[in-house]
């Protein structure tokens, strides 16, 4: 703090954002950048930040040049978000130095960060659903008539102008609650731009987007860069990094392990830097058919006939869908989110009433059975939302590992705690859940390890059919690889697996056959060997229909 008030020397010219903090005298400690080069937009050196015993950042560094798209990658818990929170003024570093556009910004406040043109787009949307797009954008700085009445038309006008400039097209008068996830994200980005951000930080922006929406976002981000903005993209999807970024910073265990030009590296190298060992990447791979000594029984596996599910307004969200998943087979369902994938899985799992049709597991009809009865006939289910459905966050890992099978871990209505603990210790070691403590609350685990708890529970017991919905959503590379291997092992053991994923790569890499859902129906079912991202993409957006050759 003191250094900042002391200095008054150099002032940056051409700072549109109105950065009014005087440059620090301590800046002289850092060698001044060569005069013909602009200073880095962000320069963070030797950042330390601890939370109790956890050292989120230890000597982390980051250097982002102006007008580049910089990818900040690393596994969950590598310290990316902490670093960005320090940049955004939400946290103060324990040690280290932050410079923005060449001036000291160590330990500044959020207001200073915003004034300096830093805009952070958070992973979770922070919009008011009952207000319109324009109202959300002007929230906190509303244009007013005679200082009292909100000037709606002016707000809408300025939103429209910004929208046209950036290509983030959205009607200002629409309600947030009516927007799709992709549109809501556009509003989030518009919001930070509206406040004059020239340096955008996007935290996992594609976690909830479909491939077409991702492509649109890429176009927008490239255009913003070409217009002179600087973009930091936090992600752990390697394909995105390679697609979009100019430069990459890799973090591992709180440290910066590499800063590389994207053109000079490969996804495999990035993955190795992130995890610290060689990783087999699923991208571009295809599964080999499993050799079977005997043909499977005709009625084994999952058989769905004429499944119809009604939505909230009497619309058929699932409309007469039939398919089978044979033992030893993975059927992947691709599709833009919201085309009925969630509903199919929920109907099969017993969490959503079936209007008509039949569901059979190993020849037993379960259409009207309860969730618990479905468990008993051998149905396992990895739900798409582990925080809402898959885990009870306040329960310990041990207690979460028996959710759904608590009946089998109790006698005469009393839970057998020794067996619960024994089971937990077994699953924790076989699924490598960290930290390896059964008595820790699930909330205390990282996203990847929480997902491992769910996977361990659903795959660690006897089952014949597995519903795997977004099994690797929001999970780091190491855990993705592990979960994929689990799915493939189960397939090799003759389990029937229905896989739903928003990650086309995942569907392509793991499935024997792929179905594309479009508006509650299967637009196509094809062998995975014939599928590619381009082919599936056309079915996903509805331009192509019918069965492929």
């Amino acid at each position, binding site marked *: 703090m003191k250094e900042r008030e002391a200095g008054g020397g150099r002032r940056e010219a051409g700072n549109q954002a109105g950065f009014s903090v005087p440059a620090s005298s301590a800046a002289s400690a850092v060698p001044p950048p060569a005069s013909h080069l602009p200073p880095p937009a962000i320069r963070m050196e030797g950042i330390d930040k601890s939370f109790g015993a956890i050292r989120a950042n230890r000597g982390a560094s980051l250097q982002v040049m102006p007008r580049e798209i910089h990818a900040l990658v690393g596994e969950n818990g590598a310290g990316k978000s902490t670093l960005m929170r320090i940049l955004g003024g939400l946290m103060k570093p324990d040690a280290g130095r932050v410079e923005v556009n060449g001036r000291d910004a160590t330990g500044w406040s959020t207001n200073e960060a915003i004034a300096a043109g830093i805009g952070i787009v958070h992973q979770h949307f922070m919009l008011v659903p009952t207000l319109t797009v324009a109202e959300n954008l002007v929230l906190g700085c509303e244009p007013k008539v005679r200082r009292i009445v909100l000037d709606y038309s002016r707000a809408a006008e300025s939103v429209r102008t910004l929208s046209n400039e950036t290509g983030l097209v959205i009607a200002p008068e629409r309600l947030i609650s009516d927007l799709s996830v992709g549109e809501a994200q556009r509003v989030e980005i518009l919001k930070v731009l509206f406040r004059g951000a020239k340096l955008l930080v996007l935290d996992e922006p594609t976690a909830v987007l479909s491939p077409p929406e991702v492509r649109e976002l890429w176009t927008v981000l490239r255009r913003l860069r070409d217009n002179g903005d600087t973009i930091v993209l936090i992600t752990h999807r390697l394909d995105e990094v390679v697609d979009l970024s100019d430069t990459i910073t890799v973090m591992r265990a709180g440290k910066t392990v590499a800063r590389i030009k994207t053109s000079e590296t490969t996804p495999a190298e990035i993955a190795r830097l992130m995890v610290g060992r060689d*990783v087999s990447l699923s991208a571009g791979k295809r599964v080999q058919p499993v050799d079977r000594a005997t043909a499977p029984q005709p009625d084994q596996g999952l058989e769905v006939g004429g499944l119809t599910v009604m939505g909230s307004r009497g619309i058929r969200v699932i409309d007469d869908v039939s398919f089978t998943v044979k033992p030893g087979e993975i059927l992947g369902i691709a599709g833009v989110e919201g085309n009925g994938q969630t509903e199919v899985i929920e109907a099969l799992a017993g969490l959503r009433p079936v209007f008509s049709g039949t569901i059979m597991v190993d020849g037993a009809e379960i259409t009207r059975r309860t969730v618990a009865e479905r468990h008993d006939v051998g149905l396992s289910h990895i739900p798409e939302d582990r925080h809402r459905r898959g885990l*009870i*966050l306040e329960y310990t890992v041990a207690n979460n590992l028996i959710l759904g099978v608590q009946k089998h871990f109790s006698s005469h209505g009393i839970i057998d705690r020794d067996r619960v603990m024994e089971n937990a210790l077994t699953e924790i070691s076989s699924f490598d859940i960290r930290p390896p403590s059964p008595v820790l609350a699930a909330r205390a685990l990282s996203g990847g390890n929480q997902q491992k708890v769910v996977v361990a529970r659903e795959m660690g017991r006897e089952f014949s059919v597995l519903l795997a919905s977004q099994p690797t959503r929001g999970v780091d590379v190491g855990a993705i690889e592990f979960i994929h291997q689990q799915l493939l092992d189960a397939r090799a053991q003759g389990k029937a697996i229905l896989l739903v994923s928003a990650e086309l790569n995942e569907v392509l890499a793991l499935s024997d056959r792929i179905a594309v859902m479009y508006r509650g129906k299967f637009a196509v079912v094809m062998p995975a060997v014939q599928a590619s991202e381009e082919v599936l993409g056309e079915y996903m957006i509805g331009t192509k229909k019918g069965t492929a050759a």
Partner: protein
Amino acid sequence: MTTATQPLAAKPTLAGTPWRERAEEALIPPFVALLVALICGDLLILSYGQSPASVYRLLLEGTWGNAYGFGQVLYKATTLAFTGLAVSFGLRAGLFNIGGESQLAAGGFAAALTGLALPVGTPLLLSLPICMIAAGVAGGIVGFVPAYLKTRFGAHEVIVTIMLNFIVLALLNWFIAGHLHVPETLHTPEIHAGVLPRLADIDPRFHGSAANLALVVAVIVAFAVWFYLFRARGGYELRAVGLQPQAAEYGGISVGRAWMRALTFSGVIAGIGGINYVLGYKHYYEDGFAGGAGFLGIAAALVGRNHPFGVLVAAFFFATLSQGGLAIHAFVPKQMMDVLQGVVILAVAMAVPEVRGILRGARRRTAA
């Protein structure tokens, strides 16, 4: 497909959140709340021109300082323990039972009717369970109605339990005033069977105080609730529903059935509380005997952090305040204790997240 090298699994340990940390988080917030309440009490006492020290001394002497006062605290704590346990049981399933008052009254009424109906001289070992069952069933019926309306029609349990308080209490009043009362009073005749021994029968120093065997029943019920919640499958499922209903549903737990169980048994527990007054103290049912204990049970549940043993402690604490109000009445109005109760509840509600945050912050700093 190449098989990835499996990372070496770390050896599992039983290490979790350290005990000390958990104990601190459970215990410190209520004590901070108590401290805040004491300071507010000081200011109130000063505003009456009295010395806080002497008033507090009087309060302690009148409650824990002599056998009679202590007995009275125990007696009052017994009813609060029942209603507090009832509320906390519902809250564990995510349901707010505001109907403790009428469930308590219905239980007391049923206990009195049973006690009247049983032949004179029925041994206590027989009469007490019968009266308890009657009280529990009566409370359970009052608890079942909102449970049914919630699961069947989605009626909010808070509204239904509040409204049921009026209906049930009015019905009981009608029964008493119209049919069962001893002339010139609003109570039933004295019961012949099921009279509970008092503490004074064991230790004569408690002479005159109403503390009775129901206290032991309350402690047993607290243990039973604890065992059910934390050791039984039903409790695992009930708490799961309270914490994350959608995850519970995913885990094959019927949310509706868990709600039914939680609210009905919440009513049962409050209903059994009726024996304290009816079997243990007056030996008859009197209109309005609950006297707000059903509502104060909500405070006991909140201050006791929904843990059965915490509720026992909180019930004891609120009983002390209530009895203490009588002891200091000569110096300051006893309503001051009601104010203090309110301050404690507010302080606990605010202190829990606040103090926890401060505790964690302090730990972080010492660790760094």
